[in-house]
């Protein structure tokens, strides 16, 4: 069964304290790995898509990386405004369209 697992479930950081979020996937064939940010009461906001092992993408304090089994979202020197739930999702080669299989998310809290 295709599965996406995120860890940790929750993470509390001090401002400026860098860390990484993990997304491991067990899927029959990966088309793409997506990262989204979700604020309370809002829909997910797109961050990155990664397509092949070794690929990296960066945006401000965030960097996403991909291996054959997992993806990491590295947060460098986070600020309180980075507090949110971070979701990863896999798009599979099988089947039509681009339906995403989501993990349950990592809830990040950055404190002053």
């Amino acid at each position: 069964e295709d599965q996406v697992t995120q860890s940790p479930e929750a993470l509390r950081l001090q401002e400026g304290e860098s860390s990484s979020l993990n997304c491991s996937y067990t899927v029959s064939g990966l088309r793409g790995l997506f990262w989204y940010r979700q604020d309370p009461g809002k829909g997910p906001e797109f961050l990155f898509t990664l397509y092949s092992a070794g690929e990296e993408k960066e945006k401000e304090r965030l960097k996403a990386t991909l291996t054959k089994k997992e993806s990491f979202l590295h947060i460098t020197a986070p600020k309180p405004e980075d507090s949110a739930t971070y979701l990863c999702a896999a798009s599979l080669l099988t089947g039509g369209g681009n339906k995403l299989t989501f993990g349950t998310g990592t809830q990040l809290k950055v404190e002053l």
Partner: protein
Amino acid sequence: GAGVSQSPSNKVTEKGKDVELRCDPISGHTALYWYRQRLGQGLEFLIYFQGNSAPDKSGLPSDRFSAERTGESVSTLTIQRTQQEDSAVYLCASSQLTSTDTQYFGPGTRLTVL
């Protein structure tokens, strides 16, 4: 430009009633997706539209759930005879094409079934 919009933002209904949830995708986006997010769980795929056709309905949890799309634009998700387990946030997303294009999400409709 305008993003994906959904209405209503909140819906409270009684068990057994029917509800309709609406999604207005980004103009020109041919693919439209519905997901459900239950408390403490990941987003679950429900159905996807390519144009006005729904090639994949595999995520609809029962025959009480149906969806349609008209004019390659607005989509409506209908839940008949609602049950308490239908309580969730229903999210709609659209993308320009289907292959690997990014899905842009609306704010969701929070459905509470009493």
